[in-house]
């Protein structure tokens, strides 16, 4: 049962650029749609409009065939009746209530026993059961996040909305919780929409991606597609000049990880705790091109391919290769001229193992 989120959000701000975001994406249970963009791009505005916390100036929002907002007909479903769980950036836990009271907060309509059951269910899922008796002020950042998720999930929402869920956490905790969060979101059986400006977070957590720039959705689609083939330069600037390849971990070799991306094998440095599936991210700047497979080099990855297209970018040339997978290299103009690069030319791409960055996916 794949639901669908359709949102057209128009908002103007005094003295600032407005937002005119149009979004129409499938949302399968357990799947995560990432709204990705730099700060100020309007992604949080869109998320808040979907939650019903803000009313757009114009546009329409519907989820799973139900209209939540329609400026034309004046429909506005209150956030209470949308049944969309919301995880705030700073978690917004109620400071005057205990952890248990926080988790039970949205269960007012249920009987005592049912309420108790739901609190247990949600707190087991998030592993916050031992914290139930605590005060909010006694919790660490990571614990707060889990309690806030338990609170949002206890009323069994139809949709989960997450606003920069990891940004309030410190570095090590963030790394740790990123993996946990992905596993949780996939396990939930409800779709999620997640807002982030962090590339690694988008790659690690998203199934589909919508890129917002200046209040407009510039591109949307499967994560690796959007990262791998930005539709225009604005998107490319936001997602970075990166090759993103879905890979499977195939083993290890000399202390390095061997991953397979379709027909090709890559050696990469092990980031630790690597599940079976990951994204291999390679910056286009770090791909070295060689006219013909030649002498030995210290780079661990040698890929044979054919040049498919070339685009000049100032002093650089963006060269797209077909190596069995699509690979983009950013080389200097003199470098390209020396190699005589042209579409159809066979070349070899050299990649150091440490240039292949692995982002865990499951």
């Amino acid at each position, binding site marked *: 049962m794949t639901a669908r989120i359709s949102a057209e959000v128009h908002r103007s701000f005094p003295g600032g650029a407005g937002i005119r975001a149009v979004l129409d994406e499938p949302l399968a249970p357990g799947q995560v749609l990432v709204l990705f963009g730099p700060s100020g791009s309007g992604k949080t505005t869109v998320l808040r409009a979907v939650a019903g916390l803000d009313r757009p100036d114009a546009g329409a929002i519907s989820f799973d065939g139900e209209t939540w907002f329609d400026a034309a007909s004046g429909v506005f479903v209150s956030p209470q009746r949308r049944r969309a769980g919301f995880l705030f950036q700073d978690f*917004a836990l109620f400071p005057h209530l205990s952890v248990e009271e926080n988790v039970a*907060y949205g269960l*007012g309509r249920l009987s005592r026993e049912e309420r108790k059951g739901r609190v247990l269910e949600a707190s087991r899922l998030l592993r916050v059961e031992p914290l139930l008796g605590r005060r909010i002020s006694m919790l660490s950042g990571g614990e707060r996040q889990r309690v806030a998720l338990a609170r949002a999930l206890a009323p069994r929402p139809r949709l989960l909305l997450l606003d920069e869920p990891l940004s309030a956490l410190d570095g090590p905790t963030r790394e740790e919780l990123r993996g946990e969060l992905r596993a949780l979101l996939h396990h939930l059986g409800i779709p999620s929409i997640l807002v982030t400006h962090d590339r690694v977070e988008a790659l690690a957590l998203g199934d589909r991606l919508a890129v917002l720039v200046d209040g407009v959705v510039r591109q949307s689609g499967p994560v690796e597609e959007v990262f791998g083939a930005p539709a225009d330069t604005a998107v490319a600037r936001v997602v970075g000049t990166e090759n993103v390849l879905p890979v499977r971990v195939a083993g290890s070799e000399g202390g390095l990880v061997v991953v397979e991306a379709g027909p090709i094998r890559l050696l990469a440095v092990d980031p630790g705790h690597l599940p079976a599936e990951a994204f291999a991210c390679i910056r286009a700047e770090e791909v070295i091109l060689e006219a013909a497979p030649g002498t030995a080099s210290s780079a661990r990855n040698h890929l044979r391919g054919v040049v498919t297209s070339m685009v000049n970018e100032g002093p650089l040339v963006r060269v797209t290769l077909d190596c069995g997978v699509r690979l983009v290299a950013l080389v200097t103009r003199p470098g390209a001229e020396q190699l005589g690069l042209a579409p159809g030319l066979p070349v070899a791409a050299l990649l150091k193992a440490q240039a292949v960055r692995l982002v865990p996916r499951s």
Partner: protein
Amino acid sequence: MDAEALRLSFTLAALTTAALLVLGLPVAAWLAVSRWRWKPLVEAVVALPLVLPPTVLGFYLLVAMGPMSPFGRAWIAAFGRPLAFSFEGLLLASVIYSLPFAVQPFAAALSAVDPRLVEASHTLGVSRLATFFRVSLPIAAPGVVAGSVLTFAHALGEFGVVLMVGGNIPGETRTLSIAIFDSVEQLDYATASRTALFLLAVSFTVLVVTYALRRRPVLG
């Protein structure tokens, strides 16, 4: 000390405080979140008793309560006796005169409540009204208590408006501050001093409690 005046003053102060909890909280809650363009107008009306001489306010209230005004006539028709120079009239005047002492601290406390918490409550399916009682009010409680205490103390000692609207009827409108004035006029300085000292002690205690409450951090 005049026991009857003491009882009357405490009753008046307690009822004023209760009335302002019921009336002042909704006004304060509205002031805390509203972005209406005419809001300063409402804020000014609420704050007016702070700067207006009590006699001016008392005069208008007296006129409004008198048999010459439609309101005064309606009151007499409904209850069979005039509002002016009665305890009810005194209470009404006291509520209006104490409005800023309740509403301003209430509004300050309520607007300090993180709006994210209110939004979180809404996304959890809890209505606006229930959110007010389950989130905003408990978090703003220290400010609401401080405002109530301040209102009580202020209503306890009020003089000017009381004199204008209530006069000096024992058991009906003769409050402690009127009693002090009376004693002084009769050159009974001993009684005046006892009553004054009592009011001073009460006011001082109330302020100490208020500031102590304000210093206490919000629960969390």
